[in-house]
């Protein structure tokens, strides 16, 4: 008998009334009792910082953990483009309904209606809240908030702070968090990495951490645990994620019984600076807005090594314009990424590695003049020439797709609680809102919606319904978990291997991007499922012992995170293999239309696949949550 029960706990009533009803019916914790409640929040990105600050403002005692030296360094800081909201300030026909509908459709009908509708509803409050904090959003001359259209949306609903929207929103949440740290309502724990979840009497009651400076392994107890630990794109080694981003916190929760949902839904962003060689340590995103004016092409001939300007127009293949005449270079992210991979697989890629396509502004410069293009994209062109030492005004940019965001994550119900009572999961770490693909400017919206406006209510409801006690972190469950954590670290110290974690990570990444990246097939995935356990075994045999545990040791940190990526990669491949359809960013080569488009199978796969851990050497067990689309009509995406 499995322990996993998937009940989404969606409130009754019409879609647009569900969240109001929930708020009317939820139980409250009295101010006096809030002071007695302790909540652990792991991660201080947009979701974690906003949740920690908001819970503390309500009167809860919060313990906030980050592996960075400061909450402000979380990777939300790197988000460039913007944040969506259904304000309809531009009077262009936007509404909560339209934002909801676009998000469901963008996710290729693989997300929960009730969650997504609520997300669209609270989106407007986020903008108001951020303005109140002093986030310097772009403004019109008259002083009104400015908007832009983003990621192919037909309305202008994206709010932005130059190309640093994530930074400014995170600094807003960080400032609110800092205020609570100063009052003592939040206690922050920096340079601390969560290594395990502690479950007492079936409820999440604490975590075990490693102090990254002293190596101390320590337990922390609370009435509830919130994971805001981000996504897992670094399973591919090269991604746009920061170097430290990892799956460990979420994966250790999975190994303690939390279900992992839709892990194969990963977004590969089409416009990144290509890798320049084997030394590449991460990839840099270039804003998608570049596709508004840039034309994407590769040579028609295989292995054409002539410089771009020597290739005449007749010998260029503007493949997106050719295949998708109405959307052209603005085709959705997954289509655009897959097409780039296809032309490179055909041997028509450009640049030193052959993994790149041109993004050419020559026509736009002819039409609008260099000055206009400089005004529109100057900072992006500077960034590009800085990295590549090439001038995009005279030589076409080279771009290539890179893993960027993961829609999958720990399964949560409408309360954002996992199937483990007391374990809440917010932001990119959960699976709930983006279905099989995420729209541009929706990640920031979801992180802050969860942290500011949803979790602070749903967590209160849970605490109000739960028997509370003053648990201290010295019970048998904590000691046992600590012992297991230490044993896990020790496991790497005894060998006499010669390979480094980076070398293994790179190999795992190459395998994953090939088998479970932009295009997947049963054959490729089965091959990966054979190869990954072998590679994991080699990893345990051949890894160099990482050495000192009582000091800063990046080798030790990397080995631990990589061990989890190895096991996680297998769950991803199981998920991709089991989902025998194409949808959103999940493209199964067996399921495409004659034109090479993703072909969904709503009959069999309009559902969430949630995976339960059964042991390292046994396949995970699949649980299905059917998706009941009651309001939105299933439609086939058509970007022709």
């Amino acid at each position, binding site marked *: 008998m499995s322990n996993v029960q998937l009940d989404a706990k969606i409130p009754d009533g019409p879609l647009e009334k569900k969240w109001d009803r929930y708020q009317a019916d939820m139980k409250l914790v009295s101010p006096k009792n809030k002071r007695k409640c302790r909540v652990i929040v792991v991660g201080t990105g947009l979701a974690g910082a*906003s949740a920690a*600050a*908001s819970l503390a*403002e309500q009167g809860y005692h919060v313990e906030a953990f980050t592996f*960075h*030296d*400061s*909450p*402000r*360094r979380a*990777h939300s*800081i*790197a988000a460039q483009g913007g944040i969506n909201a259904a*304000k309809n300030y531009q009077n262009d026909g936007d509404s909560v309904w339209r934002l909801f509908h676009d998000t469901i459709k963008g996710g290729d009908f693989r997300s929960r209606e009730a969650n997504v509708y609520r997300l669209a509803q609270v989106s407007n*409050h986020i*903008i*108001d*809240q*951020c*303005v*109140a*904090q*002093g986030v*310097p*959003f*772009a*403004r*019109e*001359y008259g002083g*009104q*908030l400015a908007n832009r259209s983003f990621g192919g949306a037909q309305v202008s609903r994206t709010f932005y702070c*130059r190309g*640093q929207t994530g*930074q*400014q929103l995170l600094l807003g949440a960080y*400032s*609110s968090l800092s205020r609570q740290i*100063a009052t003592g309502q939040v206690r922050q724990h920096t340079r601390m990495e969560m290594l395990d979840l502690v479950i007492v009497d079936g409820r999440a009651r604490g975590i075990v951490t490693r102090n990254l400076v002293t190596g101390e392994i320590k337990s922390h107890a609370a009435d509830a645990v919130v994971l805001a630990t981000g996504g897992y794109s670094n399973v591919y080694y090269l991604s746009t994620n*920061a*170097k430290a981003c990892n799956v460990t916190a979420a994966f250790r929760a999975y190994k303690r019984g939390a279900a992992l949902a839709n892990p194969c839904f990963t977004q590969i962003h089409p416009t990144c600076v290509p890798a320049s*060689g084997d*030394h*590449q*340590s991460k990839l840099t*995103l270039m804003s998608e807005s570049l596709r508004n004016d840039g034309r994407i092409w590769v040579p028609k001939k295989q292995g054409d090594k002539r410089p771009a300007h020597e290739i005449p127009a007749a010998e260029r293949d503007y493949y997106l314009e050719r295949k998708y005449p109405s959307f052209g270079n603005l085709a959705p992210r997954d289509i655009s990424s897959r097409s780039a991979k296809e032309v490179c697989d055909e041997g028509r890629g450009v640049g030193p590695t052959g993994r790149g396509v041109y993004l050419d502004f020559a026509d736009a410069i002819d039409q609008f003049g260099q000055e206009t293009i400089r005004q529109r994209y100057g900072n992006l062109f500077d960034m590009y020439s800085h*990295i*590549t*030492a090439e001038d995009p005004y005279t030589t076409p940019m080279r771009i290539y797709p890179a893993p960027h965001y993961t829609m999958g994550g720990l399964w949560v119900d409408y309360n954002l609680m996992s199937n483990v009572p007391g374990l809440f999961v917010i932001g990119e770490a959960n699976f709930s809102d983006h279905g099989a693909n995420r729209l541009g400017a929706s990640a920031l919206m979801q992180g802050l919606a969860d942290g*500011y*406006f949803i979790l*602070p209510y749903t967590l209160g409801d849970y605490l109000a319904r739960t028997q509370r006690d003053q648990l201290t972190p010295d019970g048998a469950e904590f000691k046992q978990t600590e012992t297991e954590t230490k044993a896990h670290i020790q496991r790497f110290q005894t060998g006499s291997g*010669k390979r*480094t974690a980076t*070398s293994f990570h790179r190999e795992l990444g190459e395998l994953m991007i090939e088998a479970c990246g932009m295009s997947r097939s049963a054959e490729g995935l089965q091959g990966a499922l054979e190869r990954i356990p072998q590679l994991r075994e080699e990893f345990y045999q051949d890894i*160099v012992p*990482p050495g*000192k545990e009582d*000091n*800063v040791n990046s*080798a030790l940190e990397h080995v631990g995170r990589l061990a989890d990526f190895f096991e996680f990669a297998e769950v991803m491949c199981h998920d991709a293999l089991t989902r025998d359809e194409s949808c959103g960013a999940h493209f199964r080569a067996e399921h495409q239309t004659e034109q090479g488009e993703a072909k969904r199978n709503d009959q069999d796969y309009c559902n969430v696949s949630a995976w339960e851990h059964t042991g390292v050497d046994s396949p995970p067990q699949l649980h299905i949550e059917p998706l009941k689309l009651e309001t939105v009509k299933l439609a086939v995406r058509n970007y022709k």
Partner: protein
Amino acid sequence: MHLTLHVWRQNGPDQSGQMVTYPARNLSPDMSVLEMLDHVNEQLIADGDEPIAFDHDCREGICGSCSMVVNGLPHGPQKASTTCQIFLRNFRDGDDIYIEPFRATAFPIMKDLMVDRSALDRIIQAGGYVSANTGGAPDGNALPIPQHTAEAAMDAAACIGCGACVAACKNASAMLFTAAKVSQLATLPQGEAERGERARRMIAQMDQEMFGGCTNQGACSAVCPKEIGLEWIAKLNREHIRSKLPQAT
């Protein structure tokens, strides 16, 4: 290309450190300085030695983690760049490169190139916020903010909190960092209610953390990866004086 690195190694806060020389061979000019350190660390790890500890994360110039001095300059020899965005094509084959941590009394060295910059967080905690609890905020457009005001606030808000300004300053002053946050919020109407109190408290915290005073040399702004301007320090001084006036909040 081949380079010779001289890197500060120090085992812990209370121990003495020294420059250690490492040959860095077979490098690509397209590598970043951090990727060069990765390359050296790979060899150290494979040999069972301790890797060089350094803070880094986003590697696209926005997280503010990088905190090293390269050839005598915080972040290194390129304007408006963090170390992660400086590529080896800026150096010549055969060069010697000297890498040290940011140095300041308020930034104790933790290990090798890693320093403790939590003093900057405590300056923000002292008042670098608008006291706006979640919920109940008025509509974002209820308070029109002229575009030039929003843009000016954004210029100041672009600070990434790396601390290069402190490392560059002969007085190890955190004036530019503090000025950026005080000015962002003093420029915007949302920051008005706590304007005076904020300036007073953040400056007091800055002094308490043992950052030095400002003598207007401008080294801070010259090395700032986000080119935060010196005019904000002038504004900080004005805000400080303003906060002492009887009517100021």
